[in-house]
C-alpha cells in the first residue's frame, strides 16, 4: 500500500518563477490497485510521480510504501520497492549495452551487485523465455545493442525490466506519450496484461483521455497541484471520455472565473 500524506513541493521558492507544484496532496492506494492520474499541463501529476519515485525530494509531508516511511530515502534505495517506466524510451535502458545485459541488470533491481557473472547460461535461458512472452521477436536479438531497437520495443523491454522482480509499486510516467499510435497500443495492452497477471499496485500518469477512461480501477484528476476528483468503484466504471472532457471544461471555466475575480479584487483593493 502507498500512502501519500500532505505532500508539498515548491520549485524556485522565493523567486519570481516560483511554482507550487504540489499543494498538499493526500492519496492512499490499496495493494493491487491500478490508479490512473490525469490532469492539465502543470497540474503536478508528473511531479507527484517523481516525488514518489525519489527523483525529487519533497518540502513537507510523508510518503510511505508497504508500511515503511520512505520520505527521506534516496532514489536508488527506493528502487528496491519501486519499478519505473519513464516517458522517454531512452531513459529506461542503457543504449550501448545489449538487450540481455539490460535485462540481467534489471533482474537484480535493488539487490547488491558483486563479482558474480552478470550473464550465465541459465540466466540467458530465463531471459529468452521471458522476452518471448512479449511476442516482439526480440528473443533472437538478445545480443543486439538495445539502442538499435525502436522506441516501442525499448518501452516494452523497460516495462519487462521494471516488473522483472515484482515491485511493491509500479510507476508509469506517460510511458506511451513518445510512441507512435500502434506501438503505444501494444505497450498499453502489455501494461494491462502484466499489471493484471502480477496484481501489481500501479500508479500511472497519462495525457490520453482514452487511456484514462479505459485503464485501471481508479481515476484521479489533478489541477494546480491538488487532487480535484477521485473516481472509484461503480462511479469509475461509469466514467467515459466525454465525462472527463466535461470535467476538464468545468475546471477551465472555474479558472477563468478565478482570474476575473482576482482582477476585480485587485482593482478594489490596490
Amino acid at each position, binding site marked *: 500500500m502507498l500512502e501519500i500524506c500532505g505532500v508539498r513541493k515548491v520549485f524556485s521558492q522565493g523567486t519570481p518563477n516560483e511554482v507550487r507544484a504540489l499543494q498538499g496532496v493526500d492519496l492512499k492506494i490499496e495493494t493491487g490497485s491500478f490508479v490512473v492520474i490525469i490532469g492539465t499541463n502543470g497540474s503536478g501529476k508528473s511531479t507527484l510521480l517523481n516525488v514518489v519515485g525519489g527523483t525529487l525530494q519533497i518540502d513537507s509531508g510523508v510518503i510511505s510504501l508497504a508500511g515503511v516511511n520512505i520520505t527521506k530515502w534516496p532514489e536508488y534505495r527506493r*528502487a528496491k520497492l519501486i519499478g519505473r517506466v*519513464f516517458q522517454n524510451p531512452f531513459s529506461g535502458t542503457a543504449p550501448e*549495452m545489449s538487450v540481455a*545485459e539490460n535485462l*540481467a541488470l534489471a533482474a537484480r*533491481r535493488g539487490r547488491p551487485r558483486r*563479482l558474480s557473472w552478470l550473464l550465465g547460461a541459465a540466466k540467458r535461458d530465463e531471459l529468452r523465455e521471458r522476452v518471448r512472452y512479449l511476442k516482439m521477436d526480440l528473443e533472437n536479438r538478445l545480443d543486439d545493442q538495445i539502442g538499435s531497437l525502436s522506441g516501442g520495443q525499448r518501452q516494452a523491454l523497460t516495462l519487462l525490466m521494471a516488473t522483472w522482480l515484482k515491485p511493491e509499486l509500479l510507476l508509469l510516467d506517460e510511458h506511451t506519450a513518445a510512441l507512435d499510435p500502434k506501438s503505444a497500443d501494444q505497450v498499453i495492452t502489455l501494461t494491462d496484461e502484466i499489471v493484471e497477471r502480477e496484481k501489481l499496485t500501479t500508479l500511472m500518469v497519462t495525457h490520453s483521455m482514452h487511456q484514462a477512461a479505459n485503464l485501471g480501477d481508479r481515476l484521479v484528476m489533478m489541477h494546480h497541484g491538488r487532487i480535484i476528483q477521485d473516481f472509484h468503484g461503480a462511479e469509475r466504471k461509469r466514467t467515459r471520455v466525454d465525462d472527463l472532457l466535461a470535467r476538464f471544461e468545468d475546471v477551465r471555466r472555474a479558472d477563468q472565473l478565478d482570474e476575473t475575480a482576482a482582477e476585480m479584487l485587485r482593482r478594489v483593493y490596490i
Partner: protein
Amino acid sequence: MSLLIGALTIGFILSLLALGVFISFRIFDFPDITADGSSTLGAAIAAVLLIKGINPVLASAAGFAGGFLAGGVTGTLAMKFKINGLLAGILVMTALYSFNLHIMGKSNVPLFGRPTLSSYAETTGMRLLGRSTLRVLGWDVTVTEASTLITAFVAVLLVSLLLYLFLQTNLGAAMRATGNNRQMIRALGVNDERMIILGLSISNGLIALAGALLAQYQGFADIQMGIGMIVWGLASVIIGEALVGTRQVGMAIVGAIMGSVLFRLLVAIALRLGLDPNDLKLMTAAFVFAALILPGLLKNIQRRKAQALHA
C-alpha cells in the same frame, strides 16, 4: 631494432594508462585529469619502496593502491561535494605534486642497481637462454630488451584480462550502465555516485600502475614524468577506437592496447625522423585535437556532398 623494441615495451606499459583513461573518459564520460598526478604517484611509491628493498611486485601493487586512493578522492570531490569533475581532477593533481615530492624526498629517485621488475625479467631471460643476445629475423636483439618486452606484454595481458572479466560481473556491468544512463541504473537500485567513485579509483589505480612500471623500465622516478599523461592516454584510446571501430567492451580494451603501442611507434618514428623532443607534447596535443574534430568534419563534408548531389 632496439628503438623498435623500446617503443613496443613503453607502448605496452602505457597501455595500462590507456585502459585507465578508457574507463574515465569512455565508460563514464568523465574528463579525469588526475592521471597526470596519479601516474607520478605510482612511480614515486614504487621507487621509494624499491629503494627500501621491497619486492618489485609488491612495490608495483602499492603504486596501484596509491592511484586507487587518489582516484577515489577525485570521485568523492566530484560526487559528494558536487565540484565540477574537471576541477576536482585539477585539485587532486595539484595536491599530488606536493604529495609526490614528499614521498620521493627529492625531484628524482634513481633505481640504479636495485632489483626491479625489469632486472627480474633480465636475469630470468639470461638464465633461461644462457646468453645475452638473440637473432630474431636477422636482427641482433639483447636478451635484456626481449625479456623486458615479454614481461611488459604479459603484465598488460593479465591486467586487461582481469579488467575485461570484471566488467562482465554484476558490479562491473552496473558501472558500465552508470556511464551509459545514470537515470536508468538509479531506477534499478544502484548508487550511481558510488559507482563513479569506484570507477575513477580503478582508473587511477591502473594509471598509477603504468607509472610504477614505467619508472622500473626507465630506471628512475621523476616528479615531472606525469605531465601530459592524460593526453597520451587519450591519444591511445582514440587511435584504438579508429583501429577496432567499435565501443563494445572487449574490442575497446584490445583497441586501447593496440592504440597505445601504435602511438609509441609513431612517436619513435617521428623522433627518428628528426622531431625535436621538446615539440613532442605539442604534436600529441595537436594530434588529439585533430582526432577529436575530424569525425565531425568528415560527416559535415559528406552531408554537403550528398546535398550537392540531390540539388
